[in-house]
């Protein structure tokens, strides 16, 4: 693919590479600096593998102080910095550039403190999402946001992208589950934003930093809210003859005052792909499938599921499969959780991430199908039905440049559709480079300029993750404002 432009590398910085590497070598331990071309290759892309750029160098510090000295150096020498967690971004948020260093936090992966009484824990930001929950599960606690990549992705990346997951209908996304961060500013200043209380004085800088895609600073530690897990969780699986009736069923459940912990939707192509792979026993005759999970004691779950099943029956559900055991629960979830992997087995795909008002679902599904067919491609749909966050998987052949280009175009059309019906370009993956050039479809120039003016408070020179989020042309610079 080649549709997305990168800025022309700063030849002056590239020419000074040896000098910059030597400067960095004086700041960090030898094993923290990656300079050979072979090793740098491992950092040239992320989860958006169609794009790659070889970084100038890679620095993997072990302490906040090392991060501070590296940022201070880069700021003073005009070297761009691309922060990186595990490099699982699906929108190219961590893709390198030739005139930038990668600053990765993956070595800073320790749990620093757990306080069950206050229901908080402090971690270094390079710890993986799953390891966080793993560290508190022995007391029955967990950390709520659960992106699909949770085995690999880091808290640093979750903070950068304000990651969600399947359970955010009940528990919220990253920004609702973080109380404080330690962050290094571009000039090397170390700041604590928020803390371990439920609110902080002054402007909500924490809310601004979360989801800022590595443009405001580098987060090295975070204080997370942890929750006591419910007594139990159990899903039910529904097969419907049409996506309209599945969508109406979701609306009716909410109207009845029930907020399940998860409501996942799959369309027919997704059902087939997942069933072929996972053999989860999904109904192959269904046009749409819902997995709805509730939590509580056995008696509470029985009661809530009975109400949900009644509602589904009123909406013409064809297949009802209630889990009666941990094994059945695992089977029901197995297909959904393997959706991306299973799709990847049969084709290359790009995973879109728009959000729509759920009432627009039938219309959007129909229009998406038309869009993708008009490009002669196929799409499978998996999404979080309760919150309208779509994940259409557009399948194509990565070795066919024409088809790859068509897939990108189809994806762009779908995201524009999401905005048209009142939604947004990205629900949980972030803008990165992937959706950067679509930002003007969602925002006016004034909207974007206000965001860029805020960005400039943290980074006047566009050194931090500079090729991301904002369209390359029309960027606001502090100097462009008459004083």
């Amino acid at each position, binding site marked *: 693919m080649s549709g997305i432009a990168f800025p022309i590398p700063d030849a002056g910085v590239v020419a000074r590479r040896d000098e910059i590497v030597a400067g960095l070598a004086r700041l960090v331990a030898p094993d923290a600096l990656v300079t050979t071309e072979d090793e740098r290759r491992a950092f040239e892309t992320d989860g958006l593998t169609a794009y790659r750029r070889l970084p100038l160098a890679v620095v993997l510090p072990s302490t906040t102080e090392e991060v501070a000295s590296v940022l201070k150096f880069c700021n003073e020498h005009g070297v761009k910095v691309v922060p990186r967690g595990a490099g699982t971004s699906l929108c190219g948020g961590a893709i390198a550039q030739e005139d930038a260093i990668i600053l990765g936090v993956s070595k800073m992966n320790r749990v620093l403190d757990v306080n069950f009484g206050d229901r908080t824990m402090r971690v270094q930001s390079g710890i993986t999402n799953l390891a966080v929950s793993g560290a508190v599960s022995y007391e029955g606690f967990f950390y709520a946001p659960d992106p699909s990549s949770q085995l690999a992705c880091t808290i640093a990346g979750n903070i950068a992208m304000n990651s969600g997951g399947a359970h955010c209908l009940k528990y919220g996304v990253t920004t609702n589950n973080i109380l404080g961060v330690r962050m290094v500013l571009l000039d090397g200043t170390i*700041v604590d934003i928020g803390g371990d209380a*439920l609110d902080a004085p002054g402007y909500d800088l924490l809310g601004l930093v979360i989801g*800022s895609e590595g443009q405001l600073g580098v987060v090295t530690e975070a204080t997370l809210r942890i929750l006591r897990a419910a007594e139990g969780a159990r899903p039910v699986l529904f097969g419907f003859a049409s996506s309209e009736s599945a969508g109406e069923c979701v*609306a009716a459940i909410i109207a009845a005052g*029930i907020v399940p912990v998860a409501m996942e939707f799959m369309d027919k192509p997704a059902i087939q792909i997942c069933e072929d792979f996972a053999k989860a026993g999904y109904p192959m005759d269904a046009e749409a499938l819902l997995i709805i999970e509730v939590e509580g004691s056995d008696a509470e779950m029985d009661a809530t599921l009975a109400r949900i099943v009644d509602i589904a029956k009123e909406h013409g559900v064809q297949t009802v499969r209630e889990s009666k055991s941990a094994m059945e629960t695992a089977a029901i979830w197995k297909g959904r959780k393997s959706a991306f992997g299973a799709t990847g087995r049969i084709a290359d795909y790009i995973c879109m991430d728009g959000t729509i008002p759920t009432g627009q679902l039938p219309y959007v599904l129909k229009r998406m199908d038309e869009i993708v067919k008009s490009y002669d491609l196929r799409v499978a749909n998996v999404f979080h039905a309760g919150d309208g966050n779509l994940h259409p998987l557009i399948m194509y052949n990565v070795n066919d440049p024409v088809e790859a280009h068509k897939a990108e175009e189809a994806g762009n059309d779908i995201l524009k559709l999401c905005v048209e019906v009142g939604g947004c370009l990205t629900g949980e993956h972030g803008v990165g480079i992937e959706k950067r050039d679509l930002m003007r479809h969602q925002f006016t120039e004034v909207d974007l300029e206000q965001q860029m003016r805020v960005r400039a408070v943290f980074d006047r020179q566009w050194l931090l993750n500079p090729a991301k989020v904002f369209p390359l042309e029309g960027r606001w610079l502090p100097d462009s404002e008459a004083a």
Partner: protein
Amino acid sequence: MTDLLQPADEAALAEAIAAAHAAKTPLAVEGAGTKNGFGRPLQTERTLTTRGMTGVTLYEPSEMVIGARAGTPLREVEATLAEKGQALTFEPVDYRGLLGTSGEPTMGGLAASNNSGPRRIMAGACRDSLIGVRFVNGKGEIVKSGGRVMKNVTGLDLVKLMAGSWGTLGVMSEVIFKVLPAPAHVMTVVLHGLDDARAIEAMAAGLGSPFEVNGAAHLPSGVERVPKTLLRVEGFRESIAYRAGELRTVLKGFGPADVIEGDTAAALWRQIRDASFLAEPRDAAVWRVSVAPSRAAAAMAKLHPTLPVRSFYDWGGGLVWIAAAPAGDAGAAAIRGAFAGTGAHATLVRAPAEVRAAVSVFEPQPAAIAALSAGIKASFDPAGILNPGRMTAGL
């Protein structure tokens, strides 16, 4: 005393602010003015109110989202939601009793003060429910951020900056909130006679249980004759009866427990929400201190010998409401001193204007954070005309 600007729509709002920007005229920004005594006193020539911009703009019960123009009374939105059995989740404080103000609090004021009550502990703060805003910045430009969908990570999250910015960054014209089904039934487990430290342990045990406690408050002696510790559960009837029962088992080490429900219990939670216990005497200064619950009781034990106060705890001990005599600094140094080193911050909610002008109403910030905040203020309101000095001198 001042000219009142009351734009009828967003375009007129933008025009009014653009004119004030051009003339560098400082504006006091308010909704219904029910929280006017909160924050540092303003010295402005004109007042701009959002009261002229009213009405629900969007309500989709099946999407659990409601939008309203900034001047819409909260009461109207709550009534609209109640018709469909839904509610705002964060149980906003009604400050009128404490501040002695009248009028109907507005949706814009709610967002601008990031106003969250007891349920914040489980359901999140006002800022967590606020998913979209439209506002006019200090240059008179109409800006939007967020939207009507609850999952949205497109661009920088200016919604969060607007929440709790007390009208100093922009004047909101429309706010969009996510909502939830209103709780069908409520039960409160009550423990008796615990000291502050034990009460906080009890609340931690309840909040750390799987039974979804969504309110946890402690009323010490001075507020109640015999201290009361309250833990609230909400939901479907069968479910909360079970949960309240299980909770009593979890709490059995803290002495005998009762269960209360109905109007008495609801009234008690309203008093906790609104800090009604501290409304009298009218001249007492009132503070809110946010702190990690495990450090609250020790800090209060440190405070008591230095300053006569009445106080109670919400948020499982994470929020301490304190009333102190208004003389001198209204207890600022003593309170901030007692909580020093705990990561807490104290906000002066009520005090005479001269006290609010002299002490930091909001906890003073480290230099680097203050510099970022000043930069953000300038990026929204370069001429410094919107509620200048309401939060700190300069902001």
